[in-house]
Structures are given as C-alpha cells and as structure tokens.
C-alpha cells in the first residue's frame, strides 16, 4: 500500500525512471513527500527509501543535511525571511522581528493557529528587492512592514492561493517529454555519427 496518493506515486515513479541510478531521485522525491504531508513523515520517508533502494535511516540522514526539508510538522505557510548581507543592509533583521510580532511566533516556530512557520533564511537570490521574503518558496516581494502585514492578511483570506500554492517546490513542475530510448541505443547511434563525421572529415582533407 503506497503512502503517496495515486497521482503523486505516479510522478514519483516517473522521476525515478529519469536517472541512471534510482538514488539520484532522492531530493526530488523528498520534495514530493513534503508536498503531500507538509513535512517528512515517517511514512513518507519509508516510501522514499523503498523507491530509491535505500533505508529510512539513510533517507533521514540525507534529508537532514538540506534546509528545505522539514523533519517535523510545519504550518500551512512557511515564511522565510533573509537576513544575509544584502538584506541585512536593507533592514532584514528588523523585518524578521516584525514578522515574529505579526505572526505571534518566534523564529523557527509555528503560530498557535498552525498557519505559519517563521524561518530566518540565508540568501534567496532576489537581492534587488531586499529584504527578501518567501512564502512556501514563492517570492512575495514585500519589502516594508506594512506590505508584509497586508500579504499575511491576504494569505489568511485565501486571496493568494494562486500565487502561493501549498508545500512542494515541484507542485507545478511536470515533465512531459523524454528521450524514451534505450541508453545503449543512443550510445551506439553516437558512435555511428562519429564514424560518419570522421569519414566526412577525411574526405574534406583529401
């Protein structure tokens, strides 16, 4: 019995098939597990382990290395605020303090209503609109405390559902094309093309 819902399980299997080795699908699969559960549940980790031919301990050990993976439940919206150098120079720390007051939770924790988790992040590579704020890894581009509060109200009111989908950075990423050819066949084809090119080059030098 799959822990992933049917559509997700299908996407997971497609992802595994993209790589020469199953384990390479580890990070994308963990993103999918998080898309379904909001965090990496024991069941989600077990499923990723089965799909990649590894163990749950191995999956957990890998996941814990990466900032984007949550090993504990988080709010519906993960609010990330950058305080690294460019944002520091534009009031990132003040924005983080403000967000903490607005959301009523400390940095690294979740609001009482379970809606928001607040994180201090490293540089999010959007430094021309500092301080940089992301919600569920979408740039919301609120650079003033007033704009931030308005954005939070819009989230509460469901007015940003289109701009800020729920967890999962791959939620709208779907591959539709593919080589669909045996790798050996492609290698053989390449050797053939190389031989043809060499013949052409030999002819041209004559």
């Amino acid at each position, binding site marked *: 019995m799959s822990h992933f819902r049917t559509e997700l399980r299908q996407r997971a299997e497609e992802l595994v098939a*993209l790589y*020469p*080795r199953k*384990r*390479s*699908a*580890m*990070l994308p699969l*963990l*993103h999918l597990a998080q898309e379904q559960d909001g965090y990496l549940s024991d069941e989600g980790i077990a499923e990723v382990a089965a799909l*990649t031919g*590894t163990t749950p301990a191995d999956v957990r050990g*890998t*996941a814990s*290395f*990466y*900032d*984007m*993976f949550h090993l504990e439940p988080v709010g519906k919206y993960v609010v990330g605020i950058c*305080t*690294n*150098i*460019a944002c*520091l*120079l*534009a009031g990132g720390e003040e924005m983080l303090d403000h967000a903490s007051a607005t959301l009523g939770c400390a940095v690294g924790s979740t609001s009482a209503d379970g809606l928001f988790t607040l994180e201090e992040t*490293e*540089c*999010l*590579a*959007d*430094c*021309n609109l*500092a301080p940089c704020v*992301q919600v*569920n*890894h*979408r*740039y919301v581009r609120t650079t003033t405390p007033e704009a931030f509060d308005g954005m939070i109200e819009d989230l509460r009111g469901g007015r940003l559902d289109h701009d800020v989908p729920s967890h999962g*950075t*791959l939620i*709208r*990423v779907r*591959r*539709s*094309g*593919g*080589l*669909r*050819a045996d*790798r050996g066949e*492609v*290698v053989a*084809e*390449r050797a053939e*093309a*190389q031989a*043809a*090119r060499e013949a052409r*080059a030999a002819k041209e030098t004559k």
Partner: protein
Amino acid sequence: MATLDAPRIVSSRASFEDSHTLTRYLATGGYDALRKALSMFPEDVAAEVDEASLLGRGGAGFPAGRKWSMLRKSPVSYLVVNGDESEPATFKDHFLVERDPHQLVEGIIIAAYALQVSQAFLFLRGEFALGLERVQQAVNDAYEHGALGRKIFGSSFSLDIVVHPGAGAYICGEETALIEALEGKRGFPRIKPPFFPAVTGLYGEPTVVNNVETMANLPWIISNGGAAFAALGGGRSTGTRLFALAGRVKNPGVYEIEMVKNTFRDLIYDPALGGGIIDDKELKAIIPGGVSAPWFGPDLLDLPLGQDEVAEKGSMLGSGSIVVMDETTCVVRATWRITKFFSRESCGQCTPCREGSGWLERVLYRLEHGGGRAEDIDLLLDLSDNIAPGLTWPPQQTTICVLGPSIPSSIHSAISMFRDDFVAHVQHGGCPHD
C-alpha cells in the same frame, strides 16, 4: 561615464513580458544557433568557444573551453549545469532561469553537442520554485519543437536534459558537492585529487560542470562567432558579464555590461546603472565578488571590472555579485552575519572550517551584541590564520573545498580597513550604531 554600447548577449529578451516563452524565443532568433551548431563538427563548436575565451561565470573563472578539453574519453559522460546559485547577494542566475529559460536550454544543447554527451542534468536551487517551473516548461517545449530528444532537428544527435531540484545547501554550489547531491547523497565535497569531475564525476564517469550563465552565452557565441565575443571586453576577460548589484545603492539589480570597459564607479554611480548611494551617503566598502571575496575601499572605485584586474588587487570578481556598504553600515555586524552564514553552511567534514566558523561567529557576536574583549580583535585574526594560514589571497587551502578558506576574507578585510570600528565596539560594550 559607463560604456554601455556593447550588445546584450544574455539579457536581450529580458524587457519582454513573455521573455520566458517559446513563442518569444523563436520570434527573436531562438534555436537558430543550435541549427548552425548541428551543421558544424562538434570539435569546431568547441573551437569557437575556445576562441571566445569564455571564462566560467560561476565564480572560479576557469576557461570553459579548457574545461571541456579535459573531458576524459569514455562511452558514457555527462554534462551537469550548475544553477545552485547561493553565494550571498548573487542573483544573476535567478534572473536567467526565470527570464530566459530557452536561452539556457539552447546553450546546454549546444554544449552537449560539442562534448558529444547524450545526457545533461540541470541542477537548480530548490528555492527557485518559479525558475524550476519555467525551465521545465522550456525543456518540455524544446522536446515538442524537436530541439531536444531523439535526432535533434533531424540530425544524428540525441540529448535528454533532466531538471534536478536542489534542497537548500550553499555547499552544493561546489561542483563535487553538487554531484554528490545529484547522486542523492548529502552535499559533501569530494576529496581532491582528482581535481576535476572531467576525470571522475557523476557516477564515477567523466563529467563537465558548467554554470548557468556560461551556458547562456553559447547561443550568441555560435551565432556571431567566438572572435566577435573575444573582441568585447579586454585582456582575459572577454565578452559581457551579468553583475548583480546590491546593498546601499539606489538601483540595485542585474546589469549586463562589457567586461573591463567599465569600473566599479561606473556600475555603482552611473544613472543608467546603480545610480549612486542611497541618500547620497559616502561609500564605505565594496564586496566585489560574493562574500567569499576580500573587500575593497573607495580608493579602488576606478578599478576596471575584469577578472585579472580585480585579482591583481587581491580579491576576485567571483560570482559577479557586488555589495555596496556606506557610512551608515556597521562593518562588525556585516562581518558577523557573513560569518554566521559560513558557520551555518559548513558541511562539517573538515575541522578548521567546522570549528573555526562557529568560534569566529561567537566572537563576532559578542563584539556586536556586548561582551566583546580588547583581545578579541587579534583572536579573530589568529583563528582566521588557522583556517587560511598567512591570510593571503588566494587563500592557503587547509580543507577539502574552498568554503573554509573563504571564511576569513570578510574578517581580515574588515579588521584591516576598519580596526577602529572594532575597538569602538569593545569600548562601547556593543554596537555604537544601535
């Protein structure tokens, strides 16, 4: 005045609202360079890139053509494109993947053809949710258009590109850590030698790892010729480059300008570019190439933006990020935040980096927040010297990768340039700016 007459090589479509779509790409000459490349011998495509003298745009600035020539001959080899842009204040690849994903895809196909690789991976930062969507869409469109997949445009060349999301780890920008992440493991940089993945890379096979911006330059180079590219810029720094300008400037942003022909002053003060310092304050210091780079003072504002020119003055152009600090900036706080970043992102394999970064961060924290001691300033330099002996530039290597030896850059710069500010923090018992 800035020199702004160079062609826009990688940002020509950015002003269009639909710059990310196949329709716009085809309407502006998209995939013509690929057709031209496919009519050439692969080695001639590589020779064109060699002639362009295109320096890698990721940070190390290694010539792309030379990197390609090192690829070990093997029946299986890979092209991996590094889009894990995480160097603080660097946001040019973010711009490229969101604004012109087809240009990137076309560049990757051209590179793969030159290298005769049939499998490419594009490793993108997981935080680039929209970027991931747009690049995957571009890959899907390219398949549909016949520019990707089996027998591209009717030629005998086949290629698949897999878009691979990262998951939040600065160290994965280091190419061997990126390969580990692509193999589904923790992003631990690999022990060197071998120094180049071109010998042993992904799954132990020969692999070329190139930056996103490097790839984005290829369509133009093939269309216009390597010589035309090499005619731009100066010295070893050919072509144009995307500079990500951030910090205390009026118009922060990504600017494509010709290398060497412009100076730091042009970029920061020209009304068409940075537009000057916020509130017309005095400039205090510049971080010229990402937070791993040693800082420059206002005395070097007229230095040309070129790789060797910046290296000669003891720093690097690195990732193309330029951070401006002004008279209102507390350099102790800036240094503390940068060091906190390194401490958080150290992968933990090597003692000097893992222990040194945390120790330095704690000392800087107490200087900034109260509790700093007079001897702390020399302690910072002593600890830094243990991570990168001699505090030279480029730094001495004591660790597996360059993250560790990059930590002292900001500390050494800040203390050398602004020791009085550190002393003031000790005397004041915290930050005098608060």
